[in-house]
């Protein structure tokens, strides 16, 4: 059984590499981090390796890309060398992932209800009626007003915000302990963004899960996370407590914070990030617990 003292994830010296015509491209370059029963934010710009890190945890890196690491453990179990069949069990059951756009992650030819019950029934032996009951309850939990009606809708008949809430329901119904959310709201409108994140946050806390929230938006992440990892060029440049984000010292983090136009505190010119080549070469900061 899970012991409260072990971390949900322990990853040491993770590399994600892609062979290309001009040699090997390193998307993630030797990062180490762990995830307790906490909410961990991974922030960086496009190309920083943040999404690759999220995929690497579930070993979802597409060929010809490959992963190397010194240690990768999920809840104490080695996941670096286990066969794909075991990994498939772990995905969904132990850890699930929510992607950016529900339009592409929901199956267009299956109803919402079919997809949710299928997610449940692949991991648990339950009757159809039971699955339906639990699916409806789950839809209700993600603040969908008429779960009975939505249950029989097809993905194209629901809005983006609702689609993403359905995704959350689908991912959480097998009761995973880790949720990886990769830019879960960047395809959504501002006014639904917060609602979706609040629902996700509530469920994660209620169930005592570990959350990895991957985003480019530092402010948003700081609002919904306990600890923030800032990535640059495949490495971790800084780790800080979410509450102390504004005390962050790395010039990259400072630059990211200052380059966002702020409605309430207008400036004539926005601060432009001066990228220092040394950041790229600096050793990765460890985010192990």
């Amino acid at each position, binding site marked *: 059984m899970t012991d409260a003292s072990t971390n949900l994830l322990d990853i040491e010296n993770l590399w994600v590499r892609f062979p290309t015509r001009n040699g090997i491209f390193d998307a993630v370059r030797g990062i180490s981090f762990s995830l307790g029963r906490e909410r961990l934010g991974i922030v960086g*710009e*496009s190309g920083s390796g943040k999404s690759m890190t999220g995929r690497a945890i579930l070993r979802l890196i597409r060929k010809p890309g490959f992963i190397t690491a010194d240690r990768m453990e999920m809840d104490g179990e080695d996941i670096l060398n286990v066969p794909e069949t075991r990994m498939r069990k772990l995905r969904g059951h132990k850890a699930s992932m929510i992607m950016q756009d529900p339009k592409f992650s929901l199956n267009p030819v299956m109803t919402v209800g079919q997809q949710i019950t299928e997610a449940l029934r692949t991991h648990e032996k339950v009757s159809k009626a039971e699955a339906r009951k639990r699916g409806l309850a789950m839809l209700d939990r993600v603040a969908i007003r008429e779960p009975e009606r939505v249950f029989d809708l097809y993905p194209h008949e629901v809005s*983006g915000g609702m689609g993403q809430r359905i995704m959350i329901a689908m991912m959480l119904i097998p009761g995973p302990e880790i949720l990886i959310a990769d830019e879960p709201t960047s395809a959504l*409108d*501002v*006014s639904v*963004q*917060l609602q979706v994140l609040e629902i996700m946050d509530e469920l994660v806390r209620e169930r005592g899960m570990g959350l990895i929230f991957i985003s*480019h*938006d530092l*402010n*948003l992440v700081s*609002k919904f996370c306990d600890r923030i990892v800032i990535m640059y060029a495949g490495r971790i440049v800084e780790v800080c407590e979410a509450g102390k984000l504004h005390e962050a010292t790395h010039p990259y983090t400072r*630059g*990211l914070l200052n*380059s*966002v*136009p*702020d*409605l*309430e505190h*207008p*400036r004539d*010119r*926005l*601060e*432009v*990030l001066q990228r220092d080549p040394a950041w790229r070469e600096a050793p990765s900061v460890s985010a192990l617990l």
Partner: protein
Amino acid sequence: MNALEIKDLNVWFGDGAARTDAVKHVSFDVAEGASFGLVGESGSGKSTVLRAIAGLVPTWSGEMRVMGEPLGLTRTPKFYKTVQMVFQDPYASLHPRQTVDRVLSEVLGLHGFKDIDSRIDKLLRDVGLGPGFRFRYPHQLSGGQRQRVAIARALAPEPRVLLLDEPTSALDVSVQAEILNLLADLRAEHGLTYIMVSHDLGVVGHLCGEIAVMQTGEVVEVLGVEKMRALQAEHPYTKHLLESSIGAVR
């Protein structure tokens, strides 16, 4: 003089039962040299207004004037010399098989300029790209660099009005800052009029002096940026938008 006058603009797609009204009775004026923002969520019709002005949507009614001249169903070469547009996604707005040089020289040629070589150099310098970028293909450029090329293309005919359709929403925040600074500089330098569409109140508040808020095809409120920064909106929808975007920051 007003650079742009829109009166009772309606835009629709489809006919008969399938008709959807994307823009309903929208009116606003933009003074020359001003920077006007259109804000709303997806489906609010904000981009459609821009496309109707540009002549990319043929099904519209109402009255539109650019620099005092009414717009008809087709656009004249003079219009294209006055109004230009920058698109949302820099990955989709450059032809994948054309070098920067090819893009700019074709555009300059279309507008009848002769000194193409020196103009390309100047345009690239204006948008902060060196001559080293001249013969590159889009796939050899980063998102920010592509958007700079797209801006250079829009500036090529020396327009007076720029339509900006979410010009930074596909970019990283640090790159967004660079592009927003560039747009501010260009406006000051060339005395351009901007009409900018965005879902990001922070971006609009940074660049625009006056902002129209759109919801389901209608303008619900037009307010000055000072009022918006002070969170003094009248309409409940504007208030809701302001709250959500401030909420995401705090």
